[in-house]
């Protein structure tokens, strides 16, 4: 928070020096309302009323540029939803015409698909947002870019792990209150030190009608924590693992990831593919909260299994009369190299398909309808339907309203797995935004 505050002050001071022509700014203030279907618990809030603010300022004077962007949210009903996130706060400059160096907080988007994003892993997420497109937090990054054939080669250095945001105890999104995240880097699981050298590179190329990228990362994973504790005993009860605490902590492990994306245009059809192969550091077994609930046992501890995650998608565009565009989407994903039980623990979307469409009326008010349905093809009756309607009210005002329906009945009465933790958490929402 201190770093955030210092950057805000610094950026403000910098903007005073920037000439009008080099400087631009924009922002958004939104009133967000969401109403969940009623549950039986008095501990959780079924209604969220929040104020969301995003600010961006940009200074560009060749060869230098500076970007500052962040957002904040406060919720009247759930104080745990209040947080400030820096997305971008960096300087960059070109060296020797084509070589670019950037330093500061950065937000990346490496995905090629709409709903499943195995290759897009750099930034930590806010897990109290839409599962298909979780909000992100910026990461401290030093980046070097160089032209490479018909594309770019980029080298990244990340000195710090940014902790993800988790829903609080009043949230309908999560039923578990989590402790501060622990980074497992080596065998030291007893500290919360997030300063840890991480690095990677990415190559992007445009080949005919295709965009291809390939990356390698050696970093702390941000998306697949094991939730549990490393504080347990194997000697108190012989043949069993006994937790020494009731706290649940997310553990994030160092991983080596090789991945890539591919997008190709065939007339009105766009094909998309992305994948990631992950090899985790596996020296520290964690006693999972799930194992404790299920009664422990000698095999109760676990490590993150190495695996490959892939997603494939298609987008087809139809132009209708009156300038209306219809985009049809079909996507699928899968986690490979581990069994079904392991897959469910790793991700909410472990073997799913998404079908959807977007109707853009391309009219004065920018009216748009977006509908997607995600269904699990491995686990029975698990689906998520998302319907949005968006339109401008004026040049500055915009309204977005819709519904998210989640159906995933609990199969094991003792524990909720995957999307089951969101079963019964369907909600209506309406966001009224003013842009400036």
């Amino acid at each position, binding site marked *: 928070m201190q770093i955030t505050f210092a950057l805000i002050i610094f950026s403000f001071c910098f903007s005073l020096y920037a000439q009008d022509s080099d400087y631009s700014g*924009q922002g*958004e203030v939104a009133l967000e309302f969401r109403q969940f279907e009623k549950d039986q618990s008095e501990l959780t809030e079924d209604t969220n009323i929040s104020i969301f603010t995003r600010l*961006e300022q940009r200074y560009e004077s060749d060869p230098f540029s500076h970007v500052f962007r962040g957002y904040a949210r406060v919720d009247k009903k759930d104080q745990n939803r209040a947080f400030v996130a820096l*997305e*971008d706060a960096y300087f960059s400059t*070109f060296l020797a*015409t*084509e070589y*670019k160096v950037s330093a500061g907080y950065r*937000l*990346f*988007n490496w*995905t090629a698909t709409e709903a499943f994003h195995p290759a897009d892993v750099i930034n930590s997420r806010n897990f109290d947002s839409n599962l298909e*497109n979780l909000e992100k937090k910026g990461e401290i990054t030093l980046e070097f*870019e160089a*032209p490479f054939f018909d*594309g*770019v080669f980029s080298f990244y250095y990340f000195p710090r792990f940014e902790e993800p945001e988790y829903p609080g105890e009043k949230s309908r999104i999560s039923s578990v209150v989590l402790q501060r995240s622990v980074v497992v880097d080596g065998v030291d699981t007893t500290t919360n030190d997030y300063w840890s050298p991480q690095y990677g590179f990415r190559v*992007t190329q*445009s080949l005919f*009608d295709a*965009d291809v990228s390939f990356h390698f990362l050696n970093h702390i994973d941000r998306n697949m924590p094991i939730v549990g504790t490393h504080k347990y005993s194997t000697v108190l009860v012989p043949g069993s693992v006994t937790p020494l605490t009731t706290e649940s902590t997310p553990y994030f492990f160092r991983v080596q990831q090789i991945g890539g994306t591919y*997008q190709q*245009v065939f*007339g*009105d*059809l*766009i094909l998309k593919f992305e994948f990631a192969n992950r090899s985790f550091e596996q020296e520290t077994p964690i006693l999972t909260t799930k194992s404790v609930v299920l009664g422990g046992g000698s095999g109760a501890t676990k490590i993150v299994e190495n695996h490959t995650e892939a997603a494939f998608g298609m987008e087809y*565009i*139809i*132009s209708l009369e009156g*300038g209306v*565009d219809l985009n049809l989407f079909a996507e699928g994903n899968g986690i490979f190299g581990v069994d079904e039980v392991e897959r469910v623990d790793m991700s909410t979307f472990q073997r799913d398909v998404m079908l959807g469409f977007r109707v*853009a009326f*391309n*009219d*004065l*008010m*920018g009216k748009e309808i977006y509908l997607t349905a995600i269904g699990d093809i491995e686990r029975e009756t698990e689906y998520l339907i998302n319907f949005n309607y968006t339109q*401008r009210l004026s*040049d*500055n005002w*915009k309204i977005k309203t819709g519904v998210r329906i989640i159906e995933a009945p609990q199969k094991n009465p003792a524990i909720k797995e995957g999307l089951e933790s969101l079963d019964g958490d369907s909600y209506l929402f309406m966001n009224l*935004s003013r*842009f*400036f």
Partner: protein
Amino acid sequence: MSIKITSFVFLLTFIVNFQAIAKDSPEQKGLKIAKITRKANEGFKGEESSMEMVLIDAYKAKTVRQMKSKVREDGSDGDRSLMVFLNPKDVKGTKMLTHSHKNDDDDQWLFLPSLRRVKRISSRNKSSSFMGSEFSYEDLGSQEIEKYNYKWLKDSKTKKGEALWVLQRIPKKKSGYSKMVMYVSKKKNNPVKIDYYDRKGELLKSAVFSKYKVYKVGKKKLYRASKIHMKNVQTKKQSIFTWKSRKLGIKHKSRDFDKRSLK
């Protein structure tokens, strides 16, 4: 003696050229005129401009859109352009990068600022409305002559006596139009009016190009319209596209038009 020979050669050349033009079919003549206009408009090197578009509905209510753009001339295979949307505010910062091609579909990418995402898009569907206006992406995109079949219809004049070629242009590939009829100024080598016909062959809209300015790039004089008034005759809606500022002859860097420029 030498004057007589020169006069004879000149006369012979004139007769040969006249016969060649006279022999041209309307299609060949149309293509030749299109090539003349292309050559006349080449050589701008780079362009930087800021634009405003006023949208007028059937009840005369007005809405304003703003954007700025950069274009880099790439002689070998189409131009490269970057358009940045400034208003309405919810799309401010959205960028569209286009690499035009003379024969193939253009390559296009869209930068969505809220997601920080660069998305490859299909350039095939050009009939979509541009920012809710009466202009389509096809109207404002690259007009490479290889993408159309031309036919000269007649010579004509404006009310003020400006000489015109009247050409018919039919898209070779998928388009929102069945044909376009262009009224091209012989002096400016640019259109003063284009009539657009829908897929059913009925007149859909008319664009009037006006407020031409002359720009000098090196020794070359280039004409550019500062205003395009598009009227949809079917819906009665109108859109007026005006250039607030425009500079030609700018030497843009190639990095201004690669995908890095979108971030």
